[in-house]
């Protein structure tokens, strides 16, 4: 349904180029879920914004149902607009404090002519509210955001996203500001939407545990400094991470089990806690300064996504992993290693 093909986004700040997203390709179909993970600053939001059409890529393309966004006609663009919606992180900022729930929901309905009469409007609003588990609708319709809890607000946000019956919802850390228990109910509600209504999802988080839970049936892509460094079906990525960065992320997740967390102490950590600045990217593999596996060649070779030797369904961008033989000019030779099993 939505496809990013070699999409890049370069910001210019104070005369410096910041390649926030470089050469990202991904796609999501109806009812599918793609999870983007990565630490802060890795370009997840920027990628999501490209997909949502909130920004145009500086190179590469974004396609909706096969049509490049840049070439769309007005009508197509309208259709696309309605099909892709975004749910923000902050439940306090994402609702207009001066609008009641009803007014928040009815504005897009009216604007797009989806409800003609007042009664129809009422009915639509109530439907939406029940869809997001805000029932009975009467007790929420007239509320203002400040009268709702964070979880409730986030549900209203989702309901607003649903007003135009979208095909794809992009949830950018939409649950990270919520309490654990509320987070779960919201995730469950979104899953229900996906299963029952066939809504596709791009779900963004830096918590792999959440990715695992929400996108178990979908795919997960790990981003680092604007590039996807590993992608594959979620169970594989979580249970059998290939890229050292993915491993580090996994290690970082605290385990709600004292026994597990005590055992976990082993395993490779990162060499440095801080992500490099986008304006001064390391040469070669941008991860090499922090990588426990880094070899000399990593300084020179920019790795590309390849099928991982040990896991067919996963793609990974790491020369050391995809080309363990260690040919100095590995990027080329890595191509030959295609399909090669360990």
């Amino acid at each position, binding site marked *: 349904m939505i496809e990013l093909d070699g999409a890049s986004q370069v910001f210019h700040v104070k005369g410096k180029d910041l390649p926030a997203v470089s050469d990202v390709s991904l796609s999501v179909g109806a009812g599918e879920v793609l999870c983007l993970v990565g*630490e802060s600053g890795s370009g997840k939001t920027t990628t999501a914004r490209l997909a949502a059409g909130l920004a145009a890529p500086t190179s590469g393309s974004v396609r909706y149902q096969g049509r490049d966004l840049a070439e769309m006609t007005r009508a197509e663009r309208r259709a696309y607009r309605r099909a892709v919606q975004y749910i923000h992180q902050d439940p306090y900022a994402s609702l207009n404090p001066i609008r009641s729930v009803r007014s928040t929901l009815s504005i897009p309905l009216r604007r797009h002519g989806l409800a003609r009469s007042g009664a129809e409007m009422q009915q639509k609003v109530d439907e939406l509210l029940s869809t997001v588990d805000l029932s009975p609708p009467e007790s929420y319709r007239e509320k203002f955001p400040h009268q709702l809890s964070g979880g409730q607000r986030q549900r209203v946000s989702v309901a607003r996203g649903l007003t135009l019956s979208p095909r794809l919802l992009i949830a950018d850390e939409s649950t990270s500001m919520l309490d*654990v228990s509320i987070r779960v109910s919201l995730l469950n509600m979104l899953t229900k939407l996906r299963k029952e209504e066939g809504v596709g999802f791009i779900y963004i988080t830096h918590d792999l545990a959440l990715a695992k839970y929400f996108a178990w049936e979908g795919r997960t892509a790990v981003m680092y400094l604007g590039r996807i460094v590993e992608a594959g079906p979620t169970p594989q990525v979580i249970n059998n991470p290939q890229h050292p960065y993915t491993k580090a992320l996994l*290690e*970082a997740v605290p385990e*709600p*089990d*004292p026994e*597990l*967390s005590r055992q976990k102490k082993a395993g490779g950590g990162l060499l440095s*806690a801080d992500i490099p600045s986008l304006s001064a990217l390391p040469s070669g593999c941008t991860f090499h300064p922090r990588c426990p596996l880094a070899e000399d060649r990593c300084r020179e070779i920019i790795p590309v996504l390849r099928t991982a030797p040990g896991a067919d369904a996963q793609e990974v961008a790491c020369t050391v992993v995809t080309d363990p033989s260690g040919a100095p000019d590995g990027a080329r030779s890595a191509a030959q290693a295609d399909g090669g099993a360990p």
Partner: protein
Amino acid sequence: MPATTPPPTPSTPLAGAADAAAPGPATPPSEHPVLSAKDLQVAYRTGKDTRVRALRGVSFDLYPETSLALVGESGCGKTTLGLALLRLLPTLGEITGGSITFTGEDGRRRDVTTMSAGQLRRWRWSEAAMVFQGAQNAFNPVLTIGQQMADTLRDHAPGRIGRREILERSGEALRSVRLEPRRVLGSYPHELSGGMKQRALIATGLLLRPRLLVLDEPTTALDILTQRTVIDLLAELREEFRFAMIFISHDLALAAELADRVVTMYAGKVIETGTTQDIFSAPKHPYTSKLINAVPPVRGDLPELASIPGAPPSLATLPPGCAFAPRCELATDACRAEEPELITLTSRPGDMTHAAACLHHEQVHHERKVIARA
């Protein structure tokens, strides 16, 4: 995880701190608790004569060199408790009852609630330090980190304290949290990243080598990798500096990693307390159990997660009886009639007792339904 090639950790303890007597072997738990809260009550004034009872009788003991995690949903009073312990409540908040007893290195016991302003001032930070929830704004934006550390040292020094000594001691503290003193000391807060600020704040907390460190959600605002760095650091520092620690978090997973002991709070009350092992493997309060069930694990099988129905009660209009009753499947009329007290389940020495405030604790069987195998 700690970096594989960490900068050299100081091999010597911080010099010069007043109470820097050689860190002896772990004090046996039989000693006096560092901190002992008894029936602590805190209320916030919300109107001319309306109050919110944010803490409704909280008691616990904290023994030297142990760590305790305070967990619970947002608004249950964790921060309030942390602030009350250091008597840092905002003007509208007030300790309305109970006592907080602090035992110093020398064995002197003092009631924090009755200390004078001057005593409090000297006591704070030198004996009990706190790392705040909003670490991002914990530093004065117009002073460098170095200046702020120096302020702390100066105001706690018995006499004048030299520039060299200040530099040395703050440098050491920063190195202990893996920050490069030369860079950080002269930086303004806005020039540091969130993780660096958090670490600098922890370093500041360690400056005077307090016996007690209270950390209020020290990692909530941090990126996952940074959070990991901080957590690992804390574990190390605890070994090195041997402070007692109260770790406040809504993230149970973090509690599981860092604490010897967990205290679950709900609506201003302690509803369960026990060792980390107790709480995570066999919680005896339905609330704790549900809370754990809402946390997705990253390893192993994929369990089904369930949320707790309903929302926490408003402290202004608490129902009689168990505050959790309206959200609890086990609730009976008895629960709704009277608020249950903590029931000791497993008695252990010191403060390692497992207790839960639930009439139906026997019926709580913690198990996670697996929906997908790893």
